């Protein structure tokens, strides 16, 4: 039902590297899962996009900064895998040329 090629595309979209072995077992597992959830296609439904759980409404709050303590900022920055001063360091994205 799903090919290895399709699976590769999904993995690129999801930013996950897959080994050849992963792909083989995932194709099999996808077949069994999709075979199960495909039964839903039999249900008569009217498709309308406004899904809501119970009577929950969105509650908003003013967009104001509440916490500016140095200590909390340090805490957040310290969790970064690579920190340079007050910045989180990542690899260069643009080429020099």
């Amino acid at each position, binding site marked *: 039902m799903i090919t290895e090629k399709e699976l590769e595309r999904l993995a690129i979209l999801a930013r*996950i590297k897959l080994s050849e072995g992963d792909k083989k077992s995932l194709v099999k597992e*996808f077949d069994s899962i999709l075979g199960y959830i495909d039964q839903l296609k039999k249900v008569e439904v009217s498709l309308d996009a406004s899904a809501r759980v119970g*009577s929950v409404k969105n*509650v908003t709050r003013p967009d104001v900064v509440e916490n500016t303590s140095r200590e909390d900022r340090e805490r957040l920055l310290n969790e970064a895998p690579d920190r340079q001063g007050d910045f989180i360091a990542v*690899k260069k994205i643009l080429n020099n040329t």
Partner: protein
Amino acid sequence: MKIDLKSLTIKKASDHLKKGDFSAVELTQAYHDEITKKNKDINAYLEVFDDALDAAKQADEKIADARKTRKEISPLAGIPCGVKDNILIKGKIASAASKILENYHATYDATVIKKLAANGAVFLGRTNMDEFAMGGSTENSAFGVTKNPYDLGRVAGGSSGGSAAAVAMDGALFALGSDTGGSIRQPASFCGVVGLKPTYGAVSRYGVMAMGSSLDQIGPIAKTASDAEIVFNAIKGNDLKDGTMIKDNTYTKKRIGKNKPVIGVPRHFLAGDGIDHEVLKAFNEAVDLFKAKGYEMKEIKLPNISYALMVYYIIMPAEVSSNLARFDGVKYGLRKNGKDGIDDYFETRRVGFGREVIRRILLGTYVLSSGYYDAYYNRANAVRRMITGDFLKAFESVDAIAMPTAPSPAFKIGEKASDPVAMYLEDIFTVTANLTGLPAISIPCGFAENSGKKLPVGLQLTARHGDESTLFETGKDFLGES
């Protein structure tokens, strides 16, 4: 006095603490000793906090203060508890049992943690779980399976398996879990304890790692329905940091039964061969007990309920794939080196995530991708609304709905590990409460005999939105709690 952990409940412990029969420090020490003794076999806790005794000392001061000033004090003051590893406690590791967050320290307190701390509860440690709460057995933990205290060859259930096992092994008086499709109720059922999934929006989700944002709720696992109620009352309520909270008047209260709630049973859904006959036997005995206690039991129809699990396994992975996009190795957690910036993501996520998590992210990516969106995600949302409608209609003639919590008692470690659909079928009775946002509780209702061992069976009760009180009332009555 000597502390007997086996028979202790929050209610009893709180009375003893207030009377001064023992101190919170002594109580915490007793739990520490019990955990040291049992955790190496059961693996309910991933970490035991070394500052629990400090918190207990503070609780003792609070209790002494209240005694002096004759003020009321929270029943949770000095009560030791476990916290699922996906709920943030400032400064502590919160790994969601994943390698990608193995060394991540929470930078703030979840709202539930703030509330419990304000009540004087003592955090003993963080409990094991399926990675990012994905699974029904705790076998998907990156740090080893949690074993069932009733039979070490079997799973404790999941994903909050560590929390349920911690309470069942007398390693805590209660524990927090999270429930996206049954992750509080199913392990509670497997371990013979009580577990509550509150109404969607009743408890703030701020500070619990998001899995399926339209499904997730935090809730208590405890020994009794009364204890679950005490914890629920402490953690529920308004929080501006969760935009989906309900208010006291969001849902109107209603009651059909004059004396006791009327309980509906969807017999048509229990007729299949996927349900263990010992579970069905225990369930039928529970129905008889309700009748004997004077409850009116009514047969009801939930016409679309057989689609619930399929709907769940579309919506949940869709939300998972979006929520777990944040784990990219940039801001926090694991980073693995690739050949360039974008390759860092691919490497980090391959190494950091376990098999089930990767499976669900890819499945979610699939059902949301162009060309499949209408066939899967939109259709699932439409059927989700139909199922919710079925339940609301049923609640026009009943006050609660009874079902087994899980189709089987605790299964053997490894038994379902190679077949994802068999594992997913574990959630067949529990996912509806998450899809509909309704509150549901699992309470122990007997045992299944299996190769000479007695394994607990759980009964699930579902009530109207915002009506946890019917669940507690009925649960307490069923369990004979005063």
